């Protein structure tokens, strides 16, 4: 019983972070219609910002959210504006040009960070990094618990933004039908830039919040890009609600797989679910929730 509960807790907490990573990607996917394969790398850059602030000025990782998220937001907007939008205008046989571009951007970011910080493993040791709250015999890692709550708040704020603000509505309109949105007077180019920035900002938050418990090196982006992709497919591409479910499902599946089947198979189980969803429930959880 204790083992079961501990597994549930670990999976759920990790799932919260996964959801945040997934929402960022799915948002970009919805509006742009492409997969951002530099997603994990943007997260990695945000982690380096957090690390630098901590190492140079002793800024607490949670405080540095105020710097890393806007910084990556701006980086995201710039990437969209100067690297991806120009590609949209060019007619080629390959509409996937932009996807290829994101791969390139991901590689460039990795190598730039390696150039600045070398391949060393960096980590932040805060006073609360290893603090755990015990409830009976079940341990809750304090940083992951805080992360979970911040993730919930950020997600809530995002939904409010998408539903009740002008820009938010324009984003949804562009995602639903780009051409129609343009005809209605939406500046689609500006909206895509903002969306890319938002998606990047969300994953930046996830990266920063992961810093107190995880480690950092330039190649860390790739695995997270992969995870984000799986989460998006689970939730249904382009669905924000789906991404939350997708993230939590992946977290839980990995945890239960690790406990009851074998840690070695944790990744495999996630990918099998990915496969099954594509086969049995194409469109993912979006089909059920409709959002």
């Amino acid at each position, binding site marked *: 019983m204790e083992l079961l509960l*501990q597994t549930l807790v670990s999976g759920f907490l990790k799932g919260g972070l996964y959801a945040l990573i997934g929402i960022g990607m799915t948002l970009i996917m919805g509006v742009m219609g492409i997969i951002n394969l530099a997603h994990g790398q943007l997260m990695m850059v945000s982690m380096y910002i957090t690390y630098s602030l901590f190492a140079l000025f002793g800024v607490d990782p949670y405080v540095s959210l105020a710097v890393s998220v806007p910084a990556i937001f701006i980086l995201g907007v710039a990437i969209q504006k100067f690297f991806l939008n120009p590609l949209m205008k060019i007619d080629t046989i390959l509409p996937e040009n932009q996807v290829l571009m994101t791969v390139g951007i991901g590689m460039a970011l990795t190598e730039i960070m390696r150039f600045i910080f070398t*391949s060393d493993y960096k*980590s932040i040791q805060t006073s609360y990094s290893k603090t755990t709250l015990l409830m009976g015999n079940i341990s809750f*890692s304090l940083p992951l618990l805080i992360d979970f709550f911040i993730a919930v708040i950020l997600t809530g704020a995002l939904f409010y933004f998408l539903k009740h603000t002008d820009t938010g509505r324009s984003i949804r309109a562009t995602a639903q039908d780009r051409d129609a949105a343009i005809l209605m007077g939406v500046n689609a180019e500006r909206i895509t830039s903002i969306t890319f920035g938002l998606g990047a900002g969300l994953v930046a938050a996830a990266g920063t919040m992961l810093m107190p418990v995880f*480690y950092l090196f330039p*190649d860390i982006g790739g695995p997270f890009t992969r995870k984000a992709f799986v989460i998006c497919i689970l939730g249904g591409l382009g669905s924000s609600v789906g991404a939350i479910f997708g993230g939590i499902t992946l977290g839980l599946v990995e945890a239960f797989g*690790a*406990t009851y089947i074998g*840690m070695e198979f944790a990744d495999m189980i996630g990918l099998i679910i990915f496969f099954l969803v594509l086969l049995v429930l194409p469109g993912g959880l979006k089909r059920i929730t409709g959002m």
Partner: protein
Amino acid sequence: MSKFRKSLIVLACFASITLALTPAHSASTVKVGIVLPITGKHAKFGEIEKLSFEMAADEINKNGGINGHLMELIIEDTTGKPDVGRSAAEKLITHDRVVILGGGYSSSVTAAIAGVAINNGFPFLVNTGSADIITQPTAHTPSGKRINRLLKELAGANDPAKIVKLKEKIVVLQKRADREVEMILPRYAIFRLNPPVSEFADGLKSFLSEVVKPETAVILHENSLFGTRGAAAFAKSAKQIGTKVLFTESYDSGAIDFKPLMAKVKSANPDLVYMVSYILDASLLMNQSMELQLNPKLFAGAAAGFTLPEFRKTAGVASEKVVSATLWHQSLPFPGSREYFDKFRAMYGRDTEYHGAEAYAAAFVIADALRRAKSHSPSDIKKALKQTDMMTVFGPVKFISYGRKIHQNKLDTYVVQWIDGKLEIIWPPKLAKKKYVFPINWIKERQ
């Protein structure tokens, strides 16, 4: 016909010119190819080895080089992936025209590079890759590879009829493998400086049986060649010292969350937790054990991740009093080992450990063999390496054959413990600089 002849003559001229030019061109330097993971998740190990190789090459060149020629290191990045390692080795052999290969980090990559070296009949001095099969020529034959697969199947088989059948198959294959080895041997020039992973825990074994006396153990290992072989070898050692292995679990070395795994270990409540890990996973395993208050009598690591200075940096107090097998420590009584450690620290402003010492020693072994070799053809270098008998910072080096292994250096292994933030050698007692801490009060240590 005359046209054909003419072109032949022209070709011959070109050939002789290039042939004549090649040695003249490389006369001033002797090229040595080093394959290491400079980027990727094993970059930390690659870096410490690269710096040590460069430091050694510098010293060698200052002291006359290779009979008056400079030793030039050409370092290729494997990124920690076997396929990249394979093409890096091929590039070094065919394009850069190096005379010998060195380096080789992580078992999977080293095994892949060894395959390339054997195909080309090329000498390769391994200094870190530690899976046993690397210096077992039979393992590089087609039948040998099948035997390895069957052995794995045998380990998991329960049905007695199946076990008998598998064993029969292996006997037949073994004979075939022995014949195939005859074909490989002339081209086989793989040498290994470091002990194989099956011997990593030899030093630890006596420490466990004489001091810790664990009744139960859990083995956790990363799921590539290194971890799998290390875990299997330790399971055997555990049997010999009468420790019951409750379960063995493997994981992917890039994993983020070990909590479910550690929770499972906690509910099994073993005396000993033995881990075969690289660096990131080693720190996370210890951090998360601490978070879950998993307190066995002893945490023991199988070298690799557990001895790097980064382990202390990233795991913090969670690394305190963790014991690890190791292949080297700066306080061992080998000539120059303390000097190497101090010089490394002075030059690069950080600590080195056994991986660096392996690389440093390997450079000197390569230089020594190249000096003695009649020519720098693969077969002459192989002959010279075979006759190697020298002392290095890493210990005595002499390549012998035992068991199924050929060209393997036999060395002792030691036990270290993280005591007050420093890696101290604690076993065997005659070499220990500090007394081991056992039993361990985890609550006190982790404050």
